[in-house]
């Protein structure tokens, strides 16, 4: 961190050069003003952003109960041992991963396709873009309650439609795969349009000359998509993949409200890490243990982002070498 500071030398303010030496008090004031501008943000940021994140690691080493959050009793790595020996931790880790894949992959692929279509010359393109962003404006809670209704076992519209096609009703609540698909569907519904717009913005910043050149070389539309659009979008794709993956590791509201239980289904079949943390903290009152889970989730994100950055960097280097 400290390495970065010298790279940005504190040059004297531009005005100081012109004016014939302002008095010392005024000069000091001028030097201090930038800090006045950033003070409100950084005060709040330190208190409610950085401090809780760092302090989580500290709390995770203590026994803290929900009813008496002021009392802390040293426990060392006890919370971590408790978490790592709990089968439901491993189950929720696995669920987080499978639900993450089930929600992120279709979402991004569909978003890419929709963005490609939105990038055509369209009548009513504002309408299409706005309508596709509608789910993004809905809250997790509202979306989940509606989808829980649609996925109802006996009277849900989705099972009705499946019945019309001639298949038996699916138990979207108790089946492991079925319930995870249902939960993922809510995520896909809420975020596909948003990601499509992000991709669209990326597509529009690809220089048109590249397409013209490709066309002159006789490349078909598909080949243009593969050889011009996709490489041009790579940074955007990496970005959305990182953001969606982080979102997936945090998934909480959807599994909580799908049936309204903190255990994520009767046999924890769709409990995610976020929900597991909430269950430990606010269901079983073990705040210290919940902090340990939060810290594990943080490390998970660091790994995910690190791997992503590594992949992106290697690709860029490879391209530069060509």
């Amino acid at each position: 961190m400290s390495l970065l500071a010298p790279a940005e030398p504190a040059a004297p303010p531009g005005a100081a050069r012109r004016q014939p030496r302002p008095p010392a008090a005024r000069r000091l004031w001028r030097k201090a003003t930038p800090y006045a501008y950033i003070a409100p943000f950084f005060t709040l940021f330190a208190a409610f952003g950085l401090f809780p994140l760092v302090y989580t690691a500290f709390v995770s080493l203590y026994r803290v109960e929900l009813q008496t959050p002021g009392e802390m009793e040293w426990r060392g790595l006890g919370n971590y041992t408790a978490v790592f020996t709990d089968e439901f931790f491993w189950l929720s880790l696995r669920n987080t991963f499978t639900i993450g894949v089930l929600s992120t992959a279709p979402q991004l692929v569909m978003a890419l396709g929709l963005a490609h279509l939105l990038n055509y010359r369209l009548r009513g393109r504002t309408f299409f873009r706005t309508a596709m962003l509608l789910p993004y404006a809905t809250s997790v809670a509202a979306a989940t309650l509606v989808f829980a209704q649609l996925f109802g076992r006996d009277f849900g519209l989705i099972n009705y439609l499946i019945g019309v096609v001639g298949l038996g009703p699916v138990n979207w609540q108790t089946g492991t795969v079925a319930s995870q698909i249902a939960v993922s569907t809510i995520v896909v519904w809420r975020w596909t349009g948003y990601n499509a717009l992000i991709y669209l913005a990326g597509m529009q910043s690809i220089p048109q000359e590249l397409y013209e050149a490709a066309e002159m070389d006789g490349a078909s539309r598909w080949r243009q998509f593969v050889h011009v659009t996709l490489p041009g979008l790579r940074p955007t794709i990496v970005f959305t993949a990182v953001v969606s993956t982080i979102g997936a590791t945090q998934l909480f509201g959807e599994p909580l409200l799908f049936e309204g239980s903190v255990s994520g289904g009767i046999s924890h079949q769709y409990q995610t890490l976020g929900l597991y943390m909430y269950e430990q903290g606010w269901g079983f009152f073990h705040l210290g243990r919940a902090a340990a889970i939060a810290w594990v989730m943080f490390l998970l994100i660091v790994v995910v982002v690190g791997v992503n950055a590594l992949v992106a960097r290697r690709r860029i280097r490879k391209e530069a070498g060509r």
Partner: protein
Amino acid sequence: MTALANAPVPSAPPVQAPPEAGTPKRPGARGRSRAGRTMKAGWLAYAVLSVAVLVSAFPFYWTIVAASRSNADLAQVPPSLLPGPNLMSNFQAVMEEADIGLALLNSLIVSGSITVGTVLCCTLAGFAFAKLRFRGRGALLALTVGTMMIPPQLGVIPLFMVIAKLEWVNQLQSVILPGLVSAFGVFFMRQFLVQTLPDELIEAARVDGASSARIFWSIVVPIARPGMAVLGLLTFMAAWNDFFWPIVALSSQNPTVQVALRQLGGGYVQDQSVIMAGTLLGTLPVLLVFGLLGRQIVGGIMQGAVKG
């Protein structure tokens, strides 16, 4: 600390890299590429997009249908797809089951305060990062951007311990104050001002002897206004829809809309049509904002994507 600040940073550059490296300073490029050079859409494109619109919109329509019927109607096979007559009585039931009136008021207070506060803090800090020079600027900006990707959800336990100590549990400030922290907002305003605010303007005002506060209010704010509006919209929607922290900090005695919805969906209310009526009431305000300003929100998200 170092892990916190450094880890996500490598992923941040690619985000802003493409537009800045690829097409430097071509603000009109996007508009031009749309005008005539892109391919015309065929009927298939329209068909697929229409299906996507239907899928996006159907859950809203279904909420209205379900909220205006009785529980018995919903259990019918085949289900009825048209709105029924029970909307008002279901709204009344929601008022009794969960205090949705209070919840709407609380959400309005919380989201409004967060929006005003966030836009103000972020414009101030964004301006400093964009146009002022000071020791530690690079480091502080890197710290802000670096933590942008870390979900605030991970800090809820210490945060809860703090507000419990302050005896703020169940009080609105426990949701408002942490909601004011937006690293994204600072970065967004910085990028906006880097591109729109000419250095010469500030320089000229300074030569004329304008005070720093004067420069901010009479020069920076008017130019920053479009960016502030977009940030305000995005912040309002995010604050209205925020879920994890409010259900930890508040309870059904003093709920926001999302807390009330959680209570409705918590299994105590068996009547599906009442749950849907609550969902409808809780979603209407954001839908209203979206209906009026959807275009600006779309623009803001696409802008944010290109800028970072």
